[in-house]
């Protein structure tokens, strides 16, 4: 091993140590951060509720098609926390099932957008100035120059309005924002000494991207994913609210609001449940995201 090579490997070694050290510190700060912890607790409570919706809700049958005209329009009481709706269904039950749908949507959308957006951003950022950069980033620019909601709505409209297509629409609308963030961070990091060192040692580009650069931008990516999850809920709810997403009797929070709005303002309490549901869901992701940001932003 020549002297230069030793020096280059030293730089890489040092960077690896730094990575581990940074993670250790982030974990320490996470444990100390009240914000992140509160968000995490809220988030996991909601998630558990959503997964075991059949067991935590009083009337699991009420989630979708169920009619009990005798019990309709009941104001909130101890049996029906948020009251009952126009078909006599327990709104609390439906809201908890709505959580399940919302989490499903976030899970699916993120598991597509996160890898795709990140890889595209990494590629464009790493090959900055090459044709790959231009084609990816111009495509992203194009999607970004349309108001996101309009794009999502029209995609939903052209396809059949249902929850799967709403997810497709949100995915299509969302990836460029991701790619742009990863792009700017990658293109900032690609001139760091350790990247040069790796390149000089003949490490393959793919490995540099995923082993050297990616771990360093994972923090902001996760933070953004968490904060954006809140946004996905909002957009999803809006699409459903406008009647272009999930259709009744699916217990979607947005759909529920638009269903119950018909009986507004006479039976105004009907919208309390789904509204609170959306708010608390978004809040949990925002708290978690803000906590993560504090954690990764350093001291």
């Amino acid at each position, binding site marked *: 091993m020549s002297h230069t090579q030793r020096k280059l490997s030293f730089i890489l070694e040092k960077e690896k140590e730094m990575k581990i050290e940074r993670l250790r510190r982030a974990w320490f*700060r996470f444990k*100390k951060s009240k914000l992140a912890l509160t968000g995490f607790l809220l988030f996991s409570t909601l998630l558990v509720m959503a997964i075991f919706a059949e067991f935590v809700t009083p009337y699991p049958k009420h989630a979708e098609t169920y009619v009990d005209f005798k019990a309709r329009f009941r104001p909130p009481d101890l049996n029906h926390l948020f009251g009952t709706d126009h078909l006599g269904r327990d709104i609390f039950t439906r809201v908890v099932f709505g959580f399940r749908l919302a989490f499903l949507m976030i899970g699916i959308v993120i598991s597509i957008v996160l890898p795709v957006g990140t890889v595209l951003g990494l590629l464009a950022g790493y090959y900055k100035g090459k044709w790959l950069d231009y084609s990816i980033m111009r495509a992203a620019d194009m999607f970004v120059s349309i108001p996101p909601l309009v794009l999502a709505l029209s995609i939903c409209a052209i396809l059949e309005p249902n929850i799967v297509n709403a997810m497709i629409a949100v995915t299509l609308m969302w990836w460029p924002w991701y790619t742009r963030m990863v792009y700017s961070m990658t293109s900032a990091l690609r001139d760091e000494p350790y990247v040069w060192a790796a390149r000089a040692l003949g490490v393959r580009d793919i490995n540099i991207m995923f082993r050297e650069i990616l771990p360093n931008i994972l923090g902001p990516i996760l933070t953004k994913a968490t904060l954006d999850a809140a946004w996905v809920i909002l957009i999803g709810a809006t699409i459903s609210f406008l009647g272009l997403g999930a259709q009744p009797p699916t217990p979607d929070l947005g759909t529920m609001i638009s269903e119950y709005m018909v009986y507004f303002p006479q039976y105004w309490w009907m919208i309390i449940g789904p509204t609170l549901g959306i708010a608390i869901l978004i809040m949990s992701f925002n708290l978690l995201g803000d906590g993560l940001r504090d954690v990764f932003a350093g*001291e």
Partner: protein
Amino acid sequence: MQVSDLVFDANRLLTVKNLYVKYKSYWYIYHVLNDISINVGLGEKIGIIGESGAGKTTLLKSILQVLPINGKITSGEIFYRDVNLLKCSKQILLEIRRKRVGMIFQDPLAALNPVFTIKDHLLEVLRYANETANIDKSDLINIALDLLRDTLIPDPERILNSYPFQLSGGMRQRIVIAMALASARELLLADEPTTNLDVTIQAQILKLIGELVEKRGLSMILISHALGLIRKMTERVYVMYGGNIIEEAPTFKLFNEPLHPYTQLLFKTAPKILEPLSSVELRGNPLDYRNLPNGCVFHPRCPYGDSEVCRKVKPHQVKVEKDRTVYCHIYGS
């Protein structure tokens, strides 16, 4: 004007007594200045040396109370002439900032607001520095031009209408100096005025500062990594380490025979006079301001610091000569 022009003691234009400063972050508390006492006499030029992060900048900022929001002076006294700056009225503090003391900030790239022109900066400063003199805008512009000429800026009219990012680092530093001079009628605080500039310009700028201070008869506190310059431009030197003063001496005596082990190491490892101090190689870890070591702050890294007393007892002031003090147990008793 409420600040007395009479000096009770010509050796005490500025006196800092037992100053403690903390920085609070979201996670930790940093004890940045611990029991600092210095004084500056009328017309005296003081140097402060120490490695980066020793608290020198914080000291200068706390004199004018322009610490960042998370910085707090927890106790101590700062006297300017006969006024206690920490207890005086807001008006007097403003007056001292406007008309008596000027400060040159460390980084010329950061010290000018990017979205305002040089003219905006200078006129704003001059307007308040000459508040009572009742002069109008064209006079202010003339004063500004004079200041720019004093700091040897070519083509001052053009520079006046430029934005900071359109100028070179040396040029920006000259403007910062010009601004500081507008307020500094008695005392100039110069915080590493040459970092981030290249070597030839460093020398020019320091020469310029030296001349201007001489010409205007100002007192000065100069912080610099360039030991040669400290030696040339100052009369007395304080050495700082870990937010403490560890040695104080007339410049020539300190350079001839440094007493504190830290100062000795400093001079040994920076033999070339322009070498920055941060390259000092010492054993042990760098200082952690969240929990400073007990006893002498320097003991974990001191070549002689293994004794019981160094680890447990904070060293007292030891007067080695009439005008020299050192804070080290080696010289005690």
